[in-house]
């Protein structure tokens, strides 16, 4: 009964684990930012954007004031654009307050090589100069290829490079779970 024989992989976080992790992240963010009024969460589509929305709700429940939430698509800023046919673009939504002088927290589902975050920093700089940029991720699976680290981590998940971490969210996949899948 080892998970090696399960073709769909195995679940490492279920729905209540994800919810608890996000609640803890929200509290950490409030603590570290000291209830800053210029906080803006920027999710990286697809799933990072949903996570940013959820985190924003939780933080605003704790602080009792609405949190500015947006989304930033990184597709055109990737360093591997030429390795595949042109990719579909995803929505970018900059909140009305903008990001100039704001305390921006980038939100993504999985932190892996760090290349997505590098691209996100480039994409972000097109829209203004934040006072500070931090990074929150649901899962940090290691194997960094750039000098990038997360400020807030939901779950550290040691993985092998042959494995794939799959995050499913209700908003997009109909279920909340994090799975480890072996790549065929």
């Amino acid at each position: 009964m080892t998970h090696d024989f399960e073709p769909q992989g195995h679940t490492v976080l279920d729905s209540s684990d994800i919810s608890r992790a996000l609640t803890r992240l929200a509290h950490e963010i409030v603590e570290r930012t000291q209830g800053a009024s210029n906080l803006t969460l920027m999710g990286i589509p697809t799933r990072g954007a949903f996570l940013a929305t959820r985190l924003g709700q939780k933080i605003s429940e704790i602080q009792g004031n609405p949190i500015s939430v947006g989304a930033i698509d990184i597709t055109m800023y990737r360093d591997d654009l030429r390795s595949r046919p042109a990719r579909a673009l995803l929505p970018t939504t900059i909140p009305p307050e903008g990001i100039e002088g704001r305390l921006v927290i980038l939100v993504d589902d999985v932190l892996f090589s760090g290349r997505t975050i590098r691209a996100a920093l480039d994409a972000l700089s097109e829209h203004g100069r934040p006072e500070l940029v931090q990074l929150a991720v649901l899962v940090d699976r290691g194997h960094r290829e750039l000098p990038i680290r997360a400020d807030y981590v939901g779950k550290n998940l040691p993985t092998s490079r042959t494995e794939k971490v799959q995050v499913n969210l209700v908003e997009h996949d109909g279920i909340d779970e994090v799975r480890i899948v072996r790549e065929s």
Partner: protein
Amino acid sequence: MKHLLSAADLSYEDAISVLDTAKQLASATEQGVGKLPPLRGRTVVNLFYEDSTRTRISFEAAAKRLSADVINFSAKGSSVSKGESLKDTALTLEAMGADAVVIRHNSSGAPHRLANAGWISGGVVNAGDGTHEHPTQALLDAYTLRNHLRGGEGDLKDVNVTIVGDVLHSRVARSNVLLLNTLGAKVRLVSPPTLLPYGVEDWDCEVSYDLDASLEGSDAVMMLRVQRERMNAAYFPNSHEYSNRYGLNVTRMNRLSETAIVMHPGPMNRGMEISADVADSQRSVIVEQVANGVSVRMAVLYLMLGGSESM
């Protein structure tokens, strides 16, 4: 997408993908991002054998906003006026390393020849060839229709589009009939019999000679330009009669449904196929079509050049 030669080359999925990509690119522009990086290091050549203002400027703006290098080549004042053939011009562009060639030519089929003769390795975009096709115009029209009539999403299922005027010489009409059908719209062509092309009965659309009978039930009316050189060529008795029967004036516009829009690919002959007060009215989306043209051409160039070579 390696080339874009005809609106018929676009499958339903391709067409939706261009429109969705254009939507994201337009939103980036609206949010103040003047320049996007994906075509950095790519070279786009605008090869224009025929006069054009908006199409050339639109392609140039599109390529530049995606950070491509742009070379403008117009036949006037170039070696073409010294008699250079399309082939030799193409070989020159290939030697200069063009990744895509945007071509406008007065001969139908020139883009197809350029794409398939083996002269160049880059992609070819048809920016209007003779009386044949103008696929990016059809895409920007579809984008404009989708924005106004379908909330900027999905396809154009059951949208009734009436295209009025000189269909015979119009590459815009042909490309629009093809693309609008792909997207599920219902197209009706309205034109004097002399200005309908041979074989139009095999096109996937309705044909009528009567504009007044076609206004009700139209969700959009697209007026085609009457080219001045046609006015004296006996296709219709005189411009006054044409305007009376096929021109869009306020009386006719008021018979359209409340949500219907008025389109024109430009340049307009005010007072001929469209009256000035219609062109400047609330229903007219003509200026918007121009803005949408840049977004749609950005999308086409991004999808052609924004990924790996082997598409």
